């Protein structure tokens, strides 16, 4: 967008954050009783709900059963009121299908599917308010939901979107920054081993800057993982207090 300075001279962004600062992350686990696992996550103004069913018997096409591991089925959708203009097709269009595929790929790498052969794990994510970083918020919410469902994972899957402006990487982009034509990189990371589950980048970026950008993304993801860990421990504490353990 012309005229909007994404990074001011003093180093402040549009919403007053510094370049490496993440947005405020708030999350709740176990929001729904019907689902096996659920979570609600807010990152700044982006709000997402994630729900996990499973592992359960393969539904639908039996032919897609895998004999040695579980199939992960993801569905990503955006609420029609989530964006500034009303969304006419919340799911089924190409972008949503692509997002669902990416989520599936991310969680296939992280969830220990070998423990549940011939079964299916469903992950449904819905964006209630979209203010940039949709994919990252979905991944973070889905991680919490999978943990809430008690499905074993190799590590937390943390994701963050970073952008590159004026030779500086900006962590956790908001919508205004994303649509400003900034090169943005979305990274899903398993923090302990530093393994990248998904890497996605759009817009032009010189090869020399790639390393800095990936480094910044990994640092941001590690920051997110700390917050998620806090949330999980808090939830466990509350749950154990309620059950009187």
């Amino acid at each position, binding site marked *: 967008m012309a005229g909007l300075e994404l990074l001011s001279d003093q180093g402040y962004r549009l919403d007053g954050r510094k370049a490496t600062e993440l947005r405020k992350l708030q999350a709740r686990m176990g929001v729904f009783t019907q689902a096996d696992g659920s979570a609600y996550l807010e990152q700044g103004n982006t709000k997402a709900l994630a729900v996990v069913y499973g592992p359960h018997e393969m539904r639908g096409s039996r032919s897609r059963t895998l004999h040695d591991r579980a199939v992960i089925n993801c569905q990503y959708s955006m609420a029609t009121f989530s964006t500034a203009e009303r969304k006419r097709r919340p799911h089924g269009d*190409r*972008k949503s*299908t*692509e997002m669902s*595929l*990416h989520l599936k*790929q991310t969680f*296939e*790498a992280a969830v220990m599917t070998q423990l549940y052969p011939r079964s299916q794990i469903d992950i449904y994510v819905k964006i209630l308010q979209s203010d940039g970083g949709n994919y990252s918020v979905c991944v973070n919410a889905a991680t919490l939901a999978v943990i809430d469902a008690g499905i074993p994972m190799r590590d937390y899957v943390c994701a963050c979107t970073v952008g590159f402006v004026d030779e500086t990487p900006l962590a956790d982009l908001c919508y205004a920054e994303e649509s400003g*034509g900034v090169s943005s*990189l979305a990274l899903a990371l*398993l923090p302990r*081993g*530093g*393994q*990248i*589950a*998904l*890497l*996605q*980048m*759009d*817009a*032009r*970026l*010189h*090869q*020399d800057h*790639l*390393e800095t950008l*990936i*480094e910044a993304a*990994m640092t941001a993801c590690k920051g997110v993982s700390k917050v998620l860990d806090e949330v999980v421990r808090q939830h466990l504490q509350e749950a154990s207090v309620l059950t009187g353990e």
Partner: protein
Amino acid sequence: MKDTPLSNCERDFLLKAIEEKKRLDGRQTYDYRKIKISFGTDYGCCFVDLGQTRVMAQVSCELVAPKENRPNEGIMFFNIELSPMASPGFEQGRQSELSVKLNRQLERCLRNSKCIDTESLCVVSGEKVWQIRVDVHTLNNDGNLMDAASIAAITALCHFRRPDVSTQGQEVTVYSPEERDPIPLSIYHMPISVSFAFFQQGTYLLVDPCEREERVMDGLLVIAMNKHREICSIQSSGGIMLLKEQVMRCSKIAGVKVSEITELINEALLNDRKARKAGGKCGFAESMPQERITALKKDETPVEMTDVTETANGIIQKGEAAPQTYPELNYKLGYKACKKWDTVLWHSFKWPAGGDVVEISDSEEEEVVILNPEVPEKPK
């Protein structure tokens, strides 16, 4: 219809070969297959052969009303058709996962990187703009459709000429190609995607996987770059976990490959321009090779011969260690049976320790190494 499933033997063979850094067609790890670019009779029609993978791209344009939020920019529309012609596994009309992936990847590679100046496509701001439509059809799938499609799309866009327009106030006149020469699109840079296939949880990587290699791969990393070493898009897919160093290495390899491919594209465009100026015949029919049998000639198949001498020597050494004679089996050799042939050995056959035998065949294949205990003979 469903694709024929890959047998376990084939899968194990491919993976084992990859571990030994060998590929089915004899390429090196970072080698691309032979790329051939040809053009059709109309401007904007391009055929790309990547080995046996064949795709066709066609660019067309139309005057439409622009989008509300971008009144002075043209519209780019990309579409990759996976037709059943290319592979038995593709179904007509159904939007399969692969189709969505390829379409989104091509869109991200070409649209988000802003390779075309969309503002130059504006005719009357807010009312009429050019809508450029790129249709890529897959004709034969032998792996790596993404790279072939990206090369075809960008080459077709470079080749395309749109009709000239002039505006007088609110009136727009579109000139036909006979009245005024059509003008090319203004292209800033040429993003080309390079695919890396990962095997065995990221331990081995191959550039430009063929169809068989794609079936056994764990995951794919697609990096789109232009020759100025700007990365236009990166996308990792499949359930693999990458390390940062792997991504950096792949981006360096991609840089090298992209500059080679860009040169090839520019050369092809130049040749086509010369051919058209000279008034020569050009088009799809002309680009098909003339199939006339004038001599019996076969393509040379590259065969790995580097360690043949050592292997043969090794077998001969082992052969000399324990010669065994089976005179009673001579009759099985048919007309070739003769008493001086004491042992028959396949060149890849491990000498049995216990002394049992095994396989004797009366075929006349060249791999048979026939040994005499005294004099080792060379295979015919």
